[in-house]
């Protein structure tokens, strides 16, 4: 059954793509809305099954011979994600109905969105790694299309290309890791890999696999240093930002790390890399968020930072940490999703997202403002029981204090973690306040705004309201989702079912003090923001991740151009030289290493002087051709070679050959004469001595190589030639005395048929060239 649920959005995409235009009267979004809603309900109905500790699975064939099967399974972790994908998906579609006007290319939008939805479901439900990879790349593709939705804008296409390149880079690394995993564990199923994890842990390839896999996760989840695609992705319409780039797609990397934790977690390498990158991202993201002036920009960096926080917790690996991570995945989706939607509302109703031009909007949009405040305070971790964000943040602090690593590098690192956690959270607090105070309180600048601000229509407010309700309810009654949802999800990651009771108040313990510190210092920094904000400008732009991206991409394009122009000169001489040098060098090296050269003087024909003489004359003539600058002289000399060869054929008992050579040579000489008459005179070569020397060396070495190979070939005759058959049977079976003729016409007649075809083709080409002389291009 599961594969039908994944198939459904794809089918819907196809149908919407084909038929939506015909249903003109209603907003396409209404046609799309049932899909995620239905799926959400279906998944909810499966919750009890999971609560019993069972899982749901289904398999369908795709490529059985390669063991790439559509096998899906639904456990706690995939359930959490599926609910987010479908639940937030429903809310986003509802929101988009009011956000996107009918003038936009709605069909395209919803098709891309549905493609994404199906792919994302595919990612979290796949058991087969290569099917997971397929859906993973599809999320990159649908994200590309959605970011570039307003494709006539340069910034949109830039953002789309950047997201595609960065995530596909990660995707391909991940593919490498998955193939290696598949080879090492001898299976394509994740569950089987988990069962065989000792094979993986003991393999020499463990660290490369881990790094490649993490590259996939880090790029998708915008971790340092791959984070800069996310702010540029904000060019997408806001429903997309709320859906993909905060609640679902960017969490795919977290999903990957979580899913594979049962294999990799517990090792020091995993801990250091994952937590390390996570914490760096947390701090960097939150620090840079307060620098932004675009509402969505702040939210983008905020997302980067929050994802870092979750990634860090996944790195910690303890039961508490994982539960906290899972919890925060849920919470973050609720408050961030709603904040994005509010930002969209502000944009929609005022015409701008620039925080410097906004302010004091509370009076005009009280509902939005309240929602934003709740969401932001939850994100900041304000210690009040209505904020779910505070609960998960406390757990974050708590788990940072209870790390299991004590020895070595990991242990030293572990001691710094709580400090980094607090620092990151302080800045989180700062930007959260910055966001809501800057937009909704403070001075009003309404006369500078394009539109007269007013509250959003209820349709647009519905989705954020729902999400904020979740924020508050889960804040007050967290255990409502603990047992049915969070615990099974944690169990899927750690292997053990946690029995932790979530509560607001645990006593005046260290995590609480940490929270108080955050609020204290955070408030201070937030209210003095204007004073120290200029500090940001002191940071050299050179270090920004976007700058690195641009340097790499532009550098790539520029160096490609110069490398290619270096060797693709259009000069025939260069091309020939390289080919010849390659030929001589590689063949010689191989001959050397295989001791290919042999020379045997046993089976040689005796040297007869007439033949040598003719040969000598031919050689001289050949070399003379090089210096002949009179056209007639050149032809004579080449004729000497040709006729000399004919003579050699006579000497070497090949009468037919001699005749043919004679005829062909004569015609060729005639043709040369004809051509020479119409072409310019021959000139002396005006090449530099060094060039001539190079030509000479190449020429001589090529000739020498072939001579050597010829001699060696002649000296290592190992078998009786099949020619004996021709001699024996030419008359008996072929009916002819002239063996060569019989070969040509009978034994190897096919060759002759096609040699005639070649002649015919040549004639055709020549005829066309001469008869149909045309001025200019015919390629129209």
């Amino acid at each position: 059954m599961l594969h039908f649920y994944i198939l459904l959005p794809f089918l819907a995409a196809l149908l919407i793509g084909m038929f939506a235009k015909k249903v003109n009267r209603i907003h396409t979004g209404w046609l799309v809305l049932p899909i995620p809603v239905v799926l959400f309900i279906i998944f909810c109905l499966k919750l009890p099954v999971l609560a019993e500790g069972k899982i749901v699975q289904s398999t369908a064939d795709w490529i059985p011979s390669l063991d790439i099967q559509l096998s899906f399974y639904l456990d706690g972790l995939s359930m959490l994600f599926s609910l987010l994908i479908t639940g937030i998906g429903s809310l986003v579609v509802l929101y988009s109905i009011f956000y996107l006007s009918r003038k936009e290319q709605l069909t395209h939008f919803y098709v891309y969105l549905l493609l994404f939805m199906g792919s994302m479901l595919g990612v979290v439900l796949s058991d087969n790694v290569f099917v997971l990879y397929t859906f993973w790349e599809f999320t990159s593709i649908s994200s590309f299309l959605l970011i570039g939705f307003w494709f006539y804008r340069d910034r949109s296409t830039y953002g789309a290309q950047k997201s595609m390149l960065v995530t596909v880079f990660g995707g391909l690394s991940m593919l490498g890791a998955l193939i290696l995993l598949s080879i090492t564990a001898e299976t394509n199923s994740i569950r089987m890999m988990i069962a065989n994890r000792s094979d993986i842990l003991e393999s020499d390839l463990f660290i490369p696999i881990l790094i490649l896999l993490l590259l996939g996760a880090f790029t998708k989840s915008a971790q340092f240093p791959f984070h800069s695609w996310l702010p540029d992705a904000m060019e997408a319409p806001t429903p997309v930002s709320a859906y993909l780039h905060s609640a679902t797609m960017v969490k795919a990397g977290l999903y990957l790390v979580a899913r594979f934790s049962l294999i990799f977690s517990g090792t020091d390498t995993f801990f250091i890399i994952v937590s390390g990158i996570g914490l760096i991202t947390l701090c960097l993201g939150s620090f840079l968020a307060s620098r932004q002036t675009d509402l969505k920009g702040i939210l983008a960096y905020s997302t980067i930072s929050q994802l870092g926080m979750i990634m860090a917790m996944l790195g910690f690996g303890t039961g508490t940490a994982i539960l906290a991570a899972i919890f925060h995945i849920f919470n973050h989706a609720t408050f961030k999703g709603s904040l994005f939607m509010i930002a969209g509302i502000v944009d929609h109703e005022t015409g701008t997202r620039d925080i410097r031009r906004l302010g004091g909007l509370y009076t005009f949009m009280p509902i939005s403002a309240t929602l934003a405040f709740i969401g932001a305070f939850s994100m900041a971790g304000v210690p009040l029981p209505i904020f779910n964000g505070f609960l998960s943040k406390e757990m974050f602090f708590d788990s940072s204090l209870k790390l299991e690593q004590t020895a070595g590098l990991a242990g030293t690192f572990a001691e710094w973690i709580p400090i980094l956690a607090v620092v990151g959270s302080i800045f989180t607090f700062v930007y959260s306040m910055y966001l809501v105070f800057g937009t909704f309180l403070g001075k009003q600048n309404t006369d500078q705004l394009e539109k007269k601000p007013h509250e959003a229509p209820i349709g647009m407010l519905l989705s954020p309201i729902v999400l904020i309700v979740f924020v508050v309810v889960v804040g007050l009654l967290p255990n409502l989702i603990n047992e049915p949802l969070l615990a099974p999800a944690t169990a899927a990651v750690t292997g053990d079912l946690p029995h932790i009771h979530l509560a607001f108040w645990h006593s005046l313990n260290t995590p609480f003090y940490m929270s108080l510190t955050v609020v204290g210092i955070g408030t201070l920094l937030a209210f003095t923001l204007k004073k120290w904000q200029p500090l940001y400008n002191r940071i050299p732009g050179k270090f920004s991740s976007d700058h690195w991206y641009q340097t790499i991409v532009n550098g790539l394009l520029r160096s490609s151009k110069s490398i290619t122009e270096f060797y693709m000169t259009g000069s025939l001489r260069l091309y020939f030289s390289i080919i010849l040098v390659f030929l001589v060098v590689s063949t010689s090296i191989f001959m050397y290493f295989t001791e290919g050269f042999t020379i045997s003087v046993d089976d040689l024909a005796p040297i007869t002087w007439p033949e040598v003489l003719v040969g000598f004359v031919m050689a001289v003539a050949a070399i003379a051709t090089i210096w002949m600058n009179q056209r007639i002289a050149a032809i004579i000399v080449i004729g000497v070679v040709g006729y000399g060869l004919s003579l050699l054929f006579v000497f070497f008992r090949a009468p037919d050959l001699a005749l043919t050579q004679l005829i062909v040579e004569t015609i060729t000489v005639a043709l040369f004469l004809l051509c020479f008459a119409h072409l310019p005179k021959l000139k002396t070569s005006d090449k530099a001595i060094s060039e001539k020397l190079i030509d000479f060396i190449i020429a001589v070495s090529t000739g020498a190589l072939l001579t050597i190979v010829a001699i060696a070939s002649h000296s290592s005759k190992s078998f009786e030639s099949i020619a004996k058959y021709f001699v024996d049977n030419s008359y008996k079976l072929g009916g002819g005395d002239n063996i060569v003729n019989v070969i040509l016409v009978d034994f190897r007649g096919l060759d002759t048929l096609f040699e005639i075809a070649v002649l015919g083709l040549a004639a055709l080409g020549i005829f066309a060239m001469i008869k149909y002389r045309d001025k200019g291009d015919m390629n129209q």
Partner: protein
Amino acid sequence: MMSNFVFLPIFIPLFVGAILVFLNKKHQLTMKISYLTVFLSLGVSIYLSYYVFKNNPLILETGAWKAPYGIILVADKLSVIMILSVNVIALAAVIFAASSVNSKMVQHYFYPLFFLLIAGVSGAFLTGDLFNLFVFFEVLLMASYGLIIIGGSKVQFRESVKYILLNLFSSILFVTTVAFLYSVTGTVNMAQLGERVAEVEQQGILTGIAILLFVVFATKGALFPLYFWLPKSYIVPSPVVSALFGALLTKVGVYSMLRVYTLIFSHKLELTHTFFIWVATITMLIGVIGALSTSNVKLIIAYNIMPAIGFMLLGIGTFSAESLAGTIYYLVHDMAIKAALFFLAGLLVWHAGTSNLNKMGGFIKTSPLLGWMFFIAALVLAGIPPFSGFIGKYLLLRGAFDEEHYIAAGIGLLSSLLILFSVLRIFIGAFWGEVKEEPKEKVRSSGLAASGLLIAISILLGVGAEWFYPYIQSAADSLIDPQIYIDFVLKE
């Protein structure tokens, strides 16, 4: 009786091509005959493939002379797969030609040359004799010489001279090397060559000869550093010719390598095949760098030929049943998608009136179908699942990783990313963005139909891989054990 069928894929185009020479002034009639011919030929190939896979390979001993004395045509699993692919491409080309080949080109013998090209390529895929392979090479080369100059523009002549001279040299080298091989082994029949080379374990000069042969095929097949003639010469003729060149000509080189280095020269693997892997790796990288270096849409596609060939050679060098299956799968996929991309590039250039990407923009509004086809084609080329490129790439990478060629596999992954980038640039540059200049003409629908057919096949090869993969793996299995072929041909 059945063995005579083997000659049909060569004979039909040969015969029709010869007839069409006399009909070069009758455009409509020529087109009708061409359509009929490609359908007939396609039908024959399908039947032939069905027969060979169901029963056993077919041999035609021309003139009823037994192998190895006479020339034989061998339709084994690999050959029929290739023949089938050639005929599909031929069909697509004829469809495309319907709107892109004008009467002047027909007068210049486009269709006869086209059919002779098909005949030559088919012959190369079916022959079991090394010298005969040379002859078929010459047939297809000569046909290509004729095709490349149709149109008679300055640029065409200029580039064709280089094209012809370089191929002429490699042909001369080919025939000389066959002679050397004959001297040592006493035969030119491929099966017997395989048998005899194996008997002496490829000692002595034989490996040197193998490398000479490699240079010949590598020049034809566009491997580094022998491909410099290719990009510019492939883009100067009409798009349908470019597509034929890109889809067929280089593949003959790859096929020859596949055949020769599994059947005959597979006894010094650590030397020869490691060398192949290095050449393949460098080609994968430098080739795609070429694709990134230019803003000429057609040139971008032409440069993309090289990384693909690099991938295929990687599979040959790795020399495992899995990697060879990857090479074959990739061969078939690449024939389809390269032809499609050359078609699309040609359509785009006609639509835009220029091949300079920097002068294009916003065409998704004026030709959405073309744009989306380009997009899908880019994904297929880069190896994004679930399209055909992924299956081939997966098998090749897996084979490489399995045999611990980590660097090569890594470069393969990197190359895939850059390939995607190079073609994505076309999509973003030409179809997204603002319209910079108004399009010059509407996109020709038969062109779109031809491209659509090939893209549909690519999708089918990916999504429906289960229908194709077992056959291809079966073909690879018979390659990895040359004794099968040898026994079949010589014991007959």
